[in-house]
């Protein structure tokens, strides 16, 4: 009950100025504590990689380990990225190969997964469930189980030691989840939009290209990121399919480095860092699409 002494105006004024009560609960403390632990867990290895890459080879082998190098050097980065040096030439070659293979894989994956995802979402045709299960099952199988037959098959087609062999293989790694992601996206686009376009004079295909495709841009971006990262990071197939030095992609190339300069840890860390930059940047910029796609697609229902 409001006391009789204060007027309504005074009580309003007091109410306006009253801040919501802040009370710190046990669960909040626990959450912040967990958050800090997890951040440390995620970041310490990354920080150590960066720190090492900025040390001289001598400084890297000092005990106790130094977190912040006393004299920072960029020599390893310069060596890796200068086309003049022998190491740089090789590293840039690997880098370019990785970009080529990953980009081609991404383009092909999007071109194939977009119509397939749409068909799985909107069409009902005999055998649809069967294809769908095949797509899902592929998701379950380890890449390596397919390595032996694919190696023999690629050898038969004379594709061993070509980038094409890698592109074809990476494509199918990414396809199942890509189709699944896009299907989830198309499930959320009302069928009426396609209907409206067809009534307005578009064929089914025109309706898809002109109306539905532009709407699924976030899904397509997510698919593209996914395909790109898979291709960029893949190791086993590149290790097995490629033998010519000038064709190697970064992950295998990195291993070559390691084998040859076994004690040059700062150089190796610098190379790892440069290799991680593209995917981390792409992902940080576009992760919103990726999480959205997963939320709307894979985990629904």
């Amino acid at each position, binding site marked *: 009950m409001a006391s009789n002494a204060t007027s309504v105006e005074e009580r309003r004024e007091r109410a306006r100025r009253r801040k919501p009560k802040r009370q710190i609960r046990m669960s909040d403390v626990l959450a912040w504590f967990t958050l800090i632990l997890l951040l440390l867990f995620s970041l310490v290895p990354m920080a150590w990689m960066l720190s090492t890459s900025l040390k001289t080879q001598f400084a890297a082998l000092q005990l106790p380990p130094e977190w912040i190098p006393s004299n920072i050097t960029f020599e390893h980065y310069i060596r890796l990225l200068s086309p003049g040096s022998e190491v740089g030439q090789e590293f840039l070659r690997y880098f370019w190969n990785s970009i080529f293979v990953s980009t081609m894989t991404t383009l092909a994956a999007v071109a194939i997964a977009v119509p397939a995802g749409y068909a799985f979402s909107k069409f009902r045709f005999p055998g649809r469930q069967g294809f769908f299960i095949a797509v899902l099952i592929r998701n379950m199988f380890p890449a390596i189980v397919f390595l032996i037959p*694919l190696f023999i098959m690629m050898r038969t087609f004379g594709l061993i030691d070509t980038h094409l062999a890698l592109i074809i293989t990476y494509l199918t790694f990414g396809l199942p989840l890509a189709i699944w992601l896009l299907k989830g996206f198309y499930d959320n686009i009302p069928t009426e939009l396609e209907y409206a376009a067809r009534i307005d004079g578009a064929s089914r295909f025109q309706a898809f290209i002109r109306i539905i495709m532009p709407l699924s841009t976030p899904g397509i971006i997510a698919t593209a990121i996914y395909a790109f990262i898979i291709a960029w990071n893949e190791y*086993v197939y590149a290790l097995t399919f490629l033998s010519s030095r000038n064709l190697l992609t970064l992950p295998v190339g990195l291993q070559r480095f390691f084998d040859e300069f076994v004690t040059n*840890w700062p150089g190796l860390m610098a190379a790892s860092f440069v*290799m991680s930059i593209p995917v981390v940047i792409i992902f940080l910029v576009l992760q919103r699409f990726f999480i959205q796609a997963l939320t709307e697609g894979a985990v629904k229902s």
Partner: protein
Amino acid sequence: MAVSAPQQATGQVATRNRREPKNVFQRAYRQWADYTYIMPALLAMFFVIAYPIAYTIYLSFYSTPTAGENVWNGLTNYTSIITAERFWMITQNTMYWTIVSTILAFIIGTAAALVAQREFIGRGLVRGIFLIPWVISHVATAYIWVWIFHSDYGLVSGMLMDLGIISSPLVILDSTTWAMPALILVNVWKDFPFIMIMMLAGLQTVPEHLLRAAKIDGASTWAQFRHVTLPHLKGVIIITLLLTIVMNLNHFTLPWIMTGGGPASSTHIWITEVYALAFRSLRFGIASAFSVILFIIMMSMAYFYVKAMTAGDDRRR
């Protein structure tokens, strides 16, 4: 325009069915245009899935000498794998690796999801940071951690010595006791973000009004989680666990680069063993038989996976 001729009994009407061919092939033919959307996917899948599976099964019944023709040898490949003591040792490693990795990654990933779904300033950044380990390549991950675990100059060894906990450098990746736990730690570091994303996505589907209702009914934060959130996430948890188990069974790169299966095969798991058999020893026949065994194990898991995945799909229509 009335059709004046009265038609017969109602039952008659349903039997004229000239526009709905009963035959599956006829219907498939009528909808051929629909298939053009999935044809490319289908072709790609055939070449990289159906054919390899068939070929692996075929090879698994042959002995494949490096020089000369393949020779049929029936089930010999299978029996020699299963009877070898090594197979059981590696199976034990695989179980250890898979089970411990899955449980730890699940706990950490779920904790991360619960933390990252709270509203606070910089949430997007925190989510992004959590996801970095998942995004960078296994090869880079492996080298970073090999360096961290380096026995003479590594971070772990160095810090512990600096703190005076140990006096001589700690051998980790070359120790039969510590190599596997170290690998598992790296694996968890690499995989927990995946579980976080799945759980985050799942958490967003928990209806807000149910949580409010529980709050009004006097449930504590823990009780809300236990009685509302967890039951709602059951489906997501099952799928995530299955995917993580399969992922762990298939992690090749980390053990291969970090320890190469050593020391004394203590970190060899199924998948590295198959690779070593095929591409180190060039025994494709035996390796194929080993693959088929893995197929069968994965297939039984795939069965549950597909069941979990398609259950919702049918209900929605």
